[in-house]
C-alpha cells in the first residue's frame, strides 16, 4: 500500500507556478527526500500534503484518505515538524506537548509525554517556557510534538537546520530508530545532502516547482557520476548534464536536457 500518493499536483499563485504537475508515490515505511533550492516548491508541496494549502489541481491521497474530501481522518495519523514553525513561546514544554496531545486525542497522555521526554532528553526542560530554549532543545521539543501521536506519516521540513553536528546527529539517529520501530513513512525536505543520503531510501529533486529527477541516492550518484549528493544537487541546480544522458528509467533525455519526469507516475 502507498502511504502517500500524489497525482498531477499543481499550485499556482496568480502568474506564479509554485508547484507544477508533480506526481509520486511513497510506499509505507519509506523515507523520501525532497530536495531543491530555495523556492523550488518543497514547502508548498508539504503544505498541500498537510492540508494547509488547497492545490490548484491534482490529487493527494494519504493513508487511503483523499485530502480534498477526508483530510481530518488522515491528519489524525500524520504529524509535522519544522524549525521555521515554532511552538508557542510562553507555555512550557510540558504544556505545549499536553496541548498537542489533546489535539491528537493521545491516550495516556502524561505517560506518552514522559516517554518522549526520556527518549529525547527533555525531562530537565519540561517546565521551562518553550521560548527560552536553545535551538537544539527547540528542535527536540518540536520532534517530540511531531511524534506525540505516534504518526504513520511524518513530514519534516529541514528538521536539523541550524543545529550543531552533535545535536543534528542525535536527531537523525532518533528518526532512524523511530522509523525502524514504527514503520512510519517519512517525507523529509532538507538542504543537508549528507542527511538525505543517510536517511532517505528515495529522493525527489525539485526545481522551479517541477520534479526534475528522482531515484535512490545511489542511483542519482551513479547517474550523475558524482561522489555525493551535494555535487548532484549542484549539477541539477546549474543545469549540468547527467553522466549517462539517460533518465531514471533508462530512457534517453531529449536534447541533452536533464531528465524531467514531472507529471509522470513513479513509484518510490
Amino acid at each position: 500500500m502507498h502511504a502517500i500518493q500524489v497525482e498531477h499536483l499543481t499550485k499556482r499563485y496568480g502568474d506564479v507556478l509554485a508547484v507544477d504537475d508533480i506526481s509520486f508515490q511513497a510506499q509505507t515505511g519509506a523515507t523520501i527526500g525532497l530536495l531543491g533550492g530555495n523556492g523550488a516548491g518543497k514547502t508548498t508541496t508539504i503544505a498541500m500534503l498537510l492540508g494547509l494549502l488547497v492545490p490548484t489541481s491534482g490529487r493527494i491521497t494519504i493513508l487511503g484518505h483523499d485530502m480534498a474530501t477526508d483530510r481530518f481522518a488522515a491528519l489524525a495519523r500524520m504529524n509535522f515538524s519544522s524549525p521555521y514553525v515554532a511552538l508557542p513561546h510562553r507555555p512550557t514544554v510540558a504544556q505545549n506537548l499536553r496541548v498537542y496531545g489533546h489535539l491528537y486525542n493521545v491516550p495516556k497522555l502524561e505517560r506518552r509525554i514522559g516517554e518522549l521526554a526520556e527518549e529525547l532528553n527533555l525531562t530537565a526542560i519540561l517546565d521551562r517556557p518553550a521560548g527560552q530554549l536553545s535551538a537544539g532543545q527547540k528542535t527536540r521539543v518540536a520532534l517530540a510534538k511531531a511524534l506525540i501521536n505516534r504518526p504513520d506519516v511524518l513530514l519534516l521540513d529541514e528538521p536539523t537546520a541550524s543545529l550543531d553536528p552533535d545535536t543534528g546527529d542525535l536527531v537523525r539517529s532518533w528518526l532512524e530508530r523511530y522509523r525502524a520501530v514504527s514503520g512510519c513513512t517519512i517525507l523529509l525536505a532538507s538542504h543537508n545532502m549528507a542527511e538525505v543520503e543517510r536517511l532517505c531510501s528515495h529522493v525527489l529533486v525539485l526545481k522551479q516547482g517541477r520534479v526534475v529527477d528522482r531515484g535512490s541516492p545511489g542511483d542519482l550518484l551513479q547517474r550523475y557520476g558524482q561522489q555525493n549528493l551535494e555535487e548532484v544537487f549542484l549539477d541539477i541546480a546549474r543545469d549540468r548534464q547527467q553522466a549517462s544522458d539517460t533518465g531514471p528509467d533508462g530512457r534517453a533525455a531529449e536534447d541533452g536536457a536533464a531528465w524531467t519526469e514531472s507529471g509522470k507516475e513513479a513509484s518510490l
Partner: protein
Amino acid sequence: MIRRIWGLMYRHLALYRRSWPRLLELCYWPILQMCIWGFTANYLAARTGNTLLGAGATLLGGVLLWEVTLRSQMGLSISFMEEMWSRNLGHVFVSPVRPFEMIAALIGMSIIRMTVGVLPAILLAWAFYAFNLFSLGPILVLFFINLMIMGWAVALGVVSLILRHGAGAEALAWGVLFGLAPFSAVFYPISVLPWFIQPLAQILPSAHVFEGMRAILLHGEIRWDHLAAAFGLNLLWLAGAALLFARQFHAARVSGALISIGE
C-alpha cells in the same frame, strides 16, 4: 471533539495560570468604566434629587451590559490573534482540529474572559453604588446570552477580516464595537436617535437588549418583543458571521494565508 476543544482552551488557560498581569488586564477596563459611570450616575442622582434607581441605574446597567458584549467580542478575537501572533495556526490546522472546533474553543475562552472581566465590576458596582445588576432577575441571563452572541458574531467578522487582510486588520479587534455603541442605545432609547439612524439601531441585537433593560429598570416591565427581536437578529448575525468565516478560512487555505499570517 470535546478533547480537541479543551486542548485549544488549555493552551490559553495555561498562560493565565502563569501570569497575574494577564488576569488583571481582563478586569481592569470593566472596573474602570464602572467607576467612571458609577460616579457620574451618583452625581446625576444627587443633582436631580433622585435615588440611583432611576436614570443613574440605566447608566450603570448600560455600561455593565455593554462590557458583556465588548469583552465577549474581544475575548474571541484576541484569543484567535494570540494563536496568530505565536504562529501557531499552522500547527493547529495540520492537526485533526476542525475549524468549528477552533471556534468553539475561542467561544469558550471568550466566556471565561468575559466572566473574569465583568463579574468583579458587577460586584463592585453593588458594593460601591448599591447597584445590583442581578436585581433585574432571571431575565438577566437572556440579556447576557444575547449580548455575548452579538459579541461573538462581530468577533467572527473581525477574525474573517484578519484571515483575508492579515495583521493589518488587527486593530478592528479593539475598535469595531465602539463604532456600534452609539447605535446600540446603551445609555439612551432608540427614539433619541435621528430618524434616519433609527433603522440602523433596529437591526442591532444589542439595541433591543438595552431597550429591554431600561423597560425593567424604569417601568418594571419585561419587553418580550425586544427579547424576541434580539434573538432573531442574533441568529441572522451569527449565521452571517459563520458563513463569512467559512468562506475566508477556505480562501486562506487557497492563498496560503494560514502559513504566512502573523507576519
